[in-house]
Structure formats: C-alpha cells, structure tokens
C-alpha cells in the first residue's frame, strides 16, 4: 500500500470531511438556484415587514421628527439671508432693532427645536430598534428550539450561534446607524429637486439627466454586493463554527499539540472571511467614487450649459450661482449615503440568512390535531418501525415491540447495535421512517410536545450540564421545585454527599459544561435531574457508565424503588444494571434476537447467557 500522509492539502473538503447531505451547511431555503435566491430575498423583505409592523406608529412618529428636523435645517440658511437682507438696513436706517430681535428669537426657537428633535429621535429610534431586535432574537431562538435534533446535527451549534450573534449584529448596526441619514437624504433630494425646478427648470432637467446614471450605478452595486455580502455571511459563519468548536475542545487541542494545525485552518477561514468581507466594501468604494464622479459630471454639464444660457441672455448669473450651490447640497448627502448602503446590504444578507432559518420546516413537528392522554399507563409500542440515519444504512429494519406499563426493560447489545436509536425514537428526537411508536395507543406524532415530555424523559449518553449552579441544573427536571425536593432527589441518587462537600454546596457554579465536576459527579447530577422530573416513562442510556462501583450500587438501589411503578428502558453494558430489569432484550444490528426475563435467558443458553458468562469472567 502506498504511504499517504494523513494531512492533506489545505482544501476545505479534505479536513472538514465529506458531509453526508448536500445541505449540511445551510437551511433548505438557501439552495443556490436563481429562483430560491429570489424567493429568499422576498422572504427576507416579508420578515423585515413583520419586524416593522408592530412599531408602525412609532416609526411614523420618528419620520415626523425627521421632517421637522429637515425643515429646521432648511430654515437656518434662509434665516441668515433674511437677517442680512432686512435686519441690517432696519438698524442702520431707522435704528429699529425689532427685526434683529425677531431673528434672534427665531434662531433660539430653531435651536431648541433642533435639540428636541435630535434628542427625541435618538431616544425613540433606540427604543424601536432595540425592541425590533429583541423580538427577532426571541423568534429565532424559539425557532431553533423547535427545530429537530437532526437539523441541529447538520447545522451545528456554531452556525446556530453565528445566526444569533454576528447576523444579529449586522442588523443591529443598521438600526443603530444611518436610518435617519437615509430618510433625511431622501427628504433632502426631494426638497432640493423641487427648489431646483423652481429656480430654473431647464438646468434642473439637465441635472436630473444624471439620475439614470446613479440608478445604473446603484443597480450594479446592488447586484454584485448582494453576492459578496451573502458570501461574507457564510464565511463568517464558518469562522464562528470553527472558533466555537476548537475553543470548546481546547483541552484536546492542547493535549494533542494541535495548536499549529488549528491555527493554520483558522487562518484559512480568517483569510477567506477577510476577502469576502472586503469584497463588498471594495465594491462600495467603487460606488462611492462613481457617485462623486457623477456629481462632478453634473457640475461640469450645468456649468457649460448654464454658462452658455447666461451668455445667450436666457438666465441670470445669480440664478446659475444659486443653482450650483444647491446642486452641491444635493450631492453631498448622497455621497454620505453610499456608505450606509454598505451597512444596509450587510443587514439584508443577514436578514436573508435569518429568514432562511425561520422558514425551515420543522421535521419533528407538533401535531395539527393533538390527542391527549389523561391517565397514562406508560405502555410503549413499536409497530413495524423502520429507521435509518442514512439512506443506505438501515439501523432498525422493522421493530415490533410492546412494553407494558410499569415494566422495566433492559436493552443490551454490541456497540452500534441501535440501542440509543430506539431510545431516541421513544423520546421523539426523530420520527420513524415507517411504522409507528406509540404511548398508550397514541402515536407519538399525535402528542403535544408538552404531553410527550411530561410523560417520557430520557437521560442521554452525553451528560450535559448547563452553565449555572448545581441546584439549577437539577431543577431543570422540574422547574419550580423547591430546594428541599432538589436535595431529596440528590440524596436518592447518592449525589448529596459530594455536593454538600463542595465549597458552596448546591450553589456551586459548575462552570462551562460542568467543567468543575468530575465525570461521575456530572452523571449523578443528571441522574438527580431525571429523578426530579418524575415521568411515567424513564429512559436511561448508560446512565451509570462513569460511576464507581459503590455509587453504582447506590443508584441501583434507588432505581429499584423509583422504577417500581414506572415504565423504564435501561440501556447498559454493565450487566449488574441489567439485572434489576423484568425483561431483557438483546439487540443485534437493529433486530431483537432474544427477549425474556434475565434468569430465563441465562438458563436458555443463548446470546445473553454468553454475554453474561463473559461479564462474570471479566470480574475475576
């Protein structure tokens, strides 16, 4: 065999590996064909509309403020003109100061109005902007919570975080900066166009001839930068995914001296992102140069045409001069606006990404017409259930199984046999591809999320602790349970002793992912959490794998009492755990090969008997 270095060329696919579905990195709305891109755009507009709608009044008010502000800005130069033309002669000729006093008062009024306007505007727009973002944040968060486990599996937490951090940041930037400039500039363009038309329609017409040029430029920018900003949103998401993951696993990175390789890969993503981000800004630079050019072009044309007109005696010099001044005031704000366009484009792309998330179909959805269970017995049934994660690898080919209410069933089998998969189907992390899973005769798909979770609780193989205190983590099992019940739960599973010995007892902060506890301690906390939840059906997926023998013994005892009147599925490799079960199921490649009471199976002399013997041998 040829020796091939494991480290391959720095192409993304090679180190990231081949994803199993083409849509691994995006929501289904983000497929690349032209139609869906257009669709996405219109969806994002709709989203924007729905964000604005609740604040229509406030936004109208804000526009009012801006109108007044625009008016006062226009008034200032007029007041100056008026003052110079009238107040001075009045004083000089008649010693009459009243006009001057009038002007002074007018200025005072204008100043105060300006102050009030700006102040109101900043405060109000901050309230509206923040409220809009707040609503959007919550909506997106809830949506992510609703989406199925398999969605999260391919989307990854990093991308979820990216949507909720950097994309939101882009939108925030837009709400915070420049919307007022946009509106003011719009008002300004309108007012000045009118003024120019009044002063000299022909010159105005010549000026307006530059409009098509501006529109062309704007169109061009819109088209190219949309692509650039979309790409930038993606590159930054990739960067975040990598960052989040490599920081989450920094222990492994350090222990395996992977820093350098990690840095290399991060640098690659960093550079991609840098160029992608820069691209939109560079296009914006081109646009801003173009806008300036158009402004100058207009000046030149007006100067030549206007000059010619003056020479022909069709216009006064004064009119031309005034016209040129107004033209400057027409183009200056537009130049400023070009920069805001940047922010706007970036926010639009972010909105697209977010609307993609909000439009994602929920695979494991709530029923349209839910059925309820009043007095759950806890009977579980699998009817001809087929399931696979990947098209060509069937995990459960066709499972038929009935677990009567109150039974404790143990599930054993080689690793990868599909034990966890069965557990996940019962807790409806996934829906079966064919057949049904039902609780007390009701298809799980017909139960509301609330009913389902109230009745079925699973302890997963990975013990996840949240950033918070130990008490808070246990309390997740039953929010609102008091301290006594939390302590009681901890006592039952044998966690109280170590918790009590911690410096702050139950109020000890477990830190990120429970880093402050040992693996066994984490497992005990999770166990206490499930115990507190007190469901009809309890699923334990290797819930004691990291415990020492004395702790396991304690847990075992607790289980005997807890499970007495409950349906339970216990998955375990240590057969000591299995033997508290009423029934054992041996699973091989997703098929049940043995089913019966543990002692029965041992006598029977099949697969389980072999396993059991092997296990007994291993103990010596």
């Amino acid at each position, binding site marked *: *065999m040829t*020796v091939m*270095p*494991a*480290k391959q060329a720095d192409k993304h696919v090679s180190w*990231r*590996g081949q994803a199993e579905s083409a849509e691994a990195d995006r929501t289904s709305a983000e497929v690349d064909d032209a139609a869906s891109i257009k669709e996405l755009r219109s969806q994002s507009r709709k989203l924007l509309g729905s964000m604005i709608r609740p604040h229509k009044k406030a936004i109208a008010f804000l526009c009012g403020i801006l109108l007044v502000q625009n008016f006062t800005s226009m008034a200032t130069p007029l*007041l100056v003109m008026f*003052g*110079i033309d009238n107040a001075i002669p009045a004083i000089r000729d008649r010693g009459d100061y009243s006009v001057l006093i009038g002007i002074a008062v007018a200025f005072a009024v204008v*100043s105060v109005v300006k*102050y009030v306007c*700006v102040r109101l505007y900043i405060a109000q727009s*901050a309230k509206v902007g923040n*409220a809009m973002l707040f609503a959007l*944040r919550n909506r997106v*968060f809830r949506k992510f*919570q609703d989406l199925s*486990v398999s969605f*999260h599996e*391919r989307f*990854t937490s990093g991308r979820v975080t990216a949507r909720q951090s950097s994309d939101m940041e882009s939108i925030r930037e837009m709400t915070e900066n420049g919307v007022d400039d946009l509106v003011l500039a719009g008002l300004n363009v309108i007012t000045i166009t009118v003024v120019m038309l009044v002063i000299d329609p022909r010159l105005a017409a010549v000026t307006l001839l530059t409009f098509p040029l501006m529109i062309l430029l704007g169109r061009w920018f819109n088209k190219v930068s949309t692509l650039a900003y979309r790409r930038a949103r993606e590159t930054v998401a990739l960067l975040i995914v990598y*960052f989040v*993951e490599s920081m989450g696993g*920094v222990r492994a*990175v*350090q*222990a395996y001296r992977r820093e350098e390789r990690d*840095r290399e890969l991060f640098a690659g993503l960093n*550079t991609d992102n840098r160029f992608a981000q820069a691209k939109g*800004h560079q296009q914006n*630079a081109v646009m*801003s*140069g173009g806008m*300036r050019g158009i*402004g*100058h072009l207009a*000046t030149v044309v007006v*100067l*030549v045409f*206007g000059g010619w007109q*003056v020479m022909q005696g069709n216009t006064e010099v004064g009119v031309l001069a005034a016209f040129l001044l107004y033209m400057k005031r027409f183009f200056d704000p537009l130049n400023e606006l070009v920069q805001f366009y940047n922010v706007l484009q970036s926010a639009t792309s972010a909105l697209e990404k977010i609307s993609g998330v909000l439009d994602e179909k929920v695979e494991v959805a709530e029923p349209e017409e839910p059925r309820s269970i009043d007095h759950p017995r806890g009977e579980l049934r699998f009817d001809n259930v087929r399931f696979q994660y990947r098209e*060509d690898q069937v995990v459960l080919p066709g499972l038929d199984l009935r677990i009567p209410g109150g039974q404790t069933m143990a599930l054993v089998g080689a*690793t990868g046999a599909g034990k*966890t998969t069965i557990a996940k189907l019962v807790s409806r992390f996934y829906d079966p591809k064919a057949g049904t899973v039902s609780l007390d005769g009701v298809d799980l798909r017909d139960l509301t*999320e609330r009913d389902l979770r109230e009745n079925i609780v699973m302890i997963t193989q990975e013990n*996840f602790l949240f950033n918070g205190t130990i008490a808070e983590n246990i309390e*997740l099992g039953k929010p609102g349970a008091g301290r006594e019940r939390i302590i009681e739960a901890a006592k039952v599973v044998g966690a109280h002793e*170590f918790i009590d010995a911690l*410096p702050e007892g139950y109020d000890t902060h477990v830190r*990120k*992912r429970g*880093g402050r506890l*040992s693996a066994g301690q984490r497992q005990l906390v999770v166990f206490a959490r499930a115990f507190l*939840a007190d469901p009809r059906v309890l699923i334990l997926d290797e819930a004691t*794998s990291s415990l*020492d*023998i004395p702790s396991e013994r304690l847990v075992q005892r607790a289980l005997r009492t807890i499970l007495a009147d409950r349906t339970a599925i216990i998955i375990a490799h240590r057969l000591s755990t299995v033997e508290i079960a009423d029934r054992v199921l041996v699973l091989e490649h997703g098929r049940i090969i043995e089913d019966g009471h543990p002692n029965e199976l041992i006598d029977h002399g099949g697969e389980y008997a072999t396993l059991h013997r*092997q296990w007994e041998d*291993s103990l010596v």
Partner: protein
Amino acid sequence: MGSERLKTPELSETDDLEPQRSAPARTTALTNLWRIKKYLYPYRFRLALLWTMVLLNIASGLAIPPLVGRAIDGPIADRDMRGLWIIVGFIALLGAADAILQLSRRYMQTTTAMAIEADMRAGLYEHLQRLHTGFHDRWQTGQLLARVTSDLGMIRRFFAGGLVFAITSIGMILIIMGQLVFIEWRLALIVAASAVPLFLIGRKFFKGYLPAARSEQDQSGEVSSAAEESALGIRAIKALGRGPLMAARFEKEAAELRDRGINKSLIASRSWSGYDAIATAAIGAVLVFGSVMVAEGRMTVGDLTAFVMLQLALLWPIEASGWVMAHGNEAMTAADRVYEVFDTEPAIKDRPGAKAIDRSEVRGELVFEDVRFGYEDDSRDILRGVDLRVKPGETVAIAGKTGSGKSTLVSLPSRLNDPTGGRILLDGTDIRDLRLANLRSVVTTAFEEATLFSMSVRENLALGRPDADEADLEAALRVAQAEFVHDLPYGLDTRIGEQGLSLSGGQRQRLALARAVVVRPAVLVLDDPLSALDVHTEELVERALAQVLRETTALVVVHRPSTVALADRVALLHEGRIAAFGKHSELMAQSPEYVDVLSAEFERSTVEEVSA
C-alpha cells in the same frame, strides 16, 4: 480628568465567571486602543500612503468649489465661451482625479482595515489557544466569540470610518476657524466660546457612555453564550422538554441586552443632541452681533455673509462629531475587552531554558513526588501528597471513588494542570523543565469524554500526529476495534457530526482511543477508556491494547475490575494520596479500601442482592 471618578456601580453584579469584568477607566481604555498600534505597524507604509491619499482627496474636494466660483465670476460674467471651456476642463480633470482618489482611497482603506482586523483575530486566537483550561472553563464561549468577532469589527469600523472622518472633520474645523479669525476675530471669539459647552458635554458623554457601551457589549456576549449553550445542549433540553424554559431564560438575557442598548442611546441622546443646537445658536449669535457691527459700520455686509456661510459649513462636522465620539467610545471599550484576554497570561508555559527532549530517547519513567494540587479559586486540596513511581514500560491503573481526583492526577503529566506542590519527573527531569510542545508529544491523553470535532474522521484520528500515514491509522483503528469507520459513507473522509454525535457512544469512545494510540507516545494516559463498550468489544479492545501497552509507560484510570486486567499494578487514590499500590490480587487481600472501590465480589453481590 481623573480616572478615579469613573467607577461604575451598576456593574457590580459581576459574577465569578468572568474575572475583571468591570468598566475600564477611560485612560486605560484609551491606552488599550493605542496598544493596537502593534497591529498597525506592519501596514505603516500602506497607511502612510492611505493618509496621503486622504489628504489629497480632501484637497481635491475643496479645490473644486472655488474654481466653480471663478468660472461664474470670470468667463461667464465676461461671456467668454473659450475661457469657460478652459476652466471647465480644469474642473473636469480635478473632478475625475477627485473621484478616482475617492475610489482608491476608500478601496485601500477598507482593504487595509480588513487585513488588520484579520491579523488581530489570528493573534487573539493564538493567544486563546495558549491559555490554560482553567481560563476556558470559566469563560463562556459566547464571550470569547464576541471578542473575536463583534469587538474586532467595532475597532475596525472605527479605524476605517470614524477615525478618518474625525480627523478630516477636525482638519476642516481648524481650516474654517482660521478663515473665521481672519475675517473678523471678534465674531470668531463667539464661535470659539461655543466650543466650551461642546467640550463640557463631550466630557460628560465620555463618562457616561463608556461604561454603558461596555455593559451592552458584555451582555451581547451573554446572549451569544446562551444561544451557543442551548444549541449544544439541544438533546438535553429536548429530552426534558425544556425548550420553553430555555426560551424564557433567553428572553431575559435578550431583554437585558435591549435595556442596556436603550440606556446607552439615552445617554447619547442626553448629551450630543445638543451639538447641532449649540452650533445653530452660535450662528444666531454671530448674526445678531454681526448685524449690529455692520450697522455701526465696523464690518461689511460681504464679510458677514462670508462669515456666516463658512459657519454653516461647520454645522455638519460638529453634528457628526457626536456620532464619531460614540464610535470611538465603542472602539475603546471593544479594545478593552480584547485586551482583557490578551492580558491574561497563560498559566502553563515554557520555563526559560526549558529543554527539548527527543521522543526516541525517552525511557518513560514517571515519578510523582509529593504532588499536591488544588484547583484555582477552590479551597479544597484534591491531591495531598501523591507519591508514585511508574517504571518504564509499566502500566499502572489508577482506581478511586467518583470525584477522588483520578482525572485530576492524570492531567498532570501532560501539564494540562501544574501541581501546586511537589513535582513530577520524567526520566529524572522535572517535567516543567521540558518544552511544553515536546512534553505533550511524549505524553498523550485520551480523556473520559471523547472530544471529537466536526471534521473528517481522518483529521480527528491524526489530531496528535498530522504526519501519521495510512498504515499507522489502520493499526490504531485495529487496536481500538474502530474499523466501523470504513463503513461510513465516505470512509475516513466522512465528516462526523459535532462532538462526534453522529456516532454511537461506543463508537465515539473507540475513535478517541484510536486517536491516542496513533500518537505512539512514550507515556500513554487513558482516562476510563472502555466505559462505553459492551463486554464483548471491551474484551477485544483489551486484548489489542495489551500489545500497545507492553511498549509504553501507561496510566489507566479504571472503574471496573475488568479494566484492571490491563495493568501491571494498581494504585488506589484515596483522600488525595496513594493509599495502596500493588498487584490487583495483593491489594484485594490487603486493602479494605481497595476492596470497597473495586471488588468484583462487590459488584456481583450487588447483582444478587438486587435480583433477589
């Protein structure tokens, strides 16, 4: 301007999670922004060119209006078409130059700023990689992420936008002020006097805005953290049906962020909203006094008009300076937050004069001498004097109760933690005198939790040895009984889900084991390596692993009697010390504590008792 007045009471709710989380004094915030110059240095020539272009651009922009005036007063008034064409030609040329300058300077400005931002990001990443695990335990990923993305973005935007704008504005204000003084110094005094309230407001603004911006940015990190955590923990959340609860918690964080954002803007609204008004009032004052002066014949109408016109041109830069100040403030707090991370020294790093070691010369004798250890900000001593001597090539199992410190103990030889007392010797040398990178290639750890990454299987396997060839990988996969990877859709090139969650528990663990075996270290540390395997697979792995362990020194944390079979000797960790050390059978006979923790009888009796 003392910084001592800038203490911020409203931030006292800082928890123990992020240390030093309080608003910065203004001076330190400024210093921190200034420290960024290190990243600007490599671009100094480009920046110099850029600034030249900015100045030229300003000049070209300012040169056109006078030319237009000349055209009107000259050729047009004189009805000289030829003269007009000449001047217009000049204007067209200047205009083209101005547009091109504008284009290229903006282009360069953003390109450079992005490059600097990327450099800082890479620098921050590198620093974070070096920080010890204690730091990472304490900092939520969202907070780090906020620093690496939005804070750096803020700094970039300030340098690329706000700063350029501020400097051009200041330049413009100075030029205009000069002209004003030249026209009529007494009126210019009025304008100058209006700068006093502007300054006072600005100072007040800084005082209030800095902590407000800081607290908003901090909260934004919290929101990201909440988002990240709830995505990572989605299985736990769904298993309990706590989605609504998490959403309610998130809403609380988001509401806090909203309120802090509003609060920040309210501070802005209270201060620089006055800027425009003051400047307008100043125009009014000039107009009034000027009119009187004109009426009294001490000034001409033309001068007054010119004066006020110039003053009108001042309005926009003054108005915008509020916005620039806000940006500057945000950049300052962002820099402060970034430097908070940069200023955290890695607790575990090479000592000066650390020695390099060669893997091939390591015999693998590992000695713990009176090793003591307690986690930082935790009063308990986990290890209270561990003495243990592992002979080269020997495999020692570490047994002990849940939480007795086994994982802590085995994290020491690769210096993931440093002992607080005593020392650890590798072939007679204190491991702290060895180069860290070297040491970690000699000592390799497989953690209790398989820390896998959403990358290809190959990349995960070769984590500790990027140059491993196909044969090495195969051998390791065989040892760990992890040949299942070949059945994945793309074999070794399949991307495994985040944290390996598209694999079964046992598959994850075997992959992590294979990853450690690939490295072929002199000292192999396995923390409870077989906990997720079924009895049958466990036996197969044990058999294969025994071959590997024969050649290396190994520490294996065990919970089960079955795993003890791997070891030559067993050490019992009890109350922070090695309470017993010897062969399994010896200990079973001699040590009641050992029997307590690891007795097969015990386990079997559990079964009997329970099933009785």
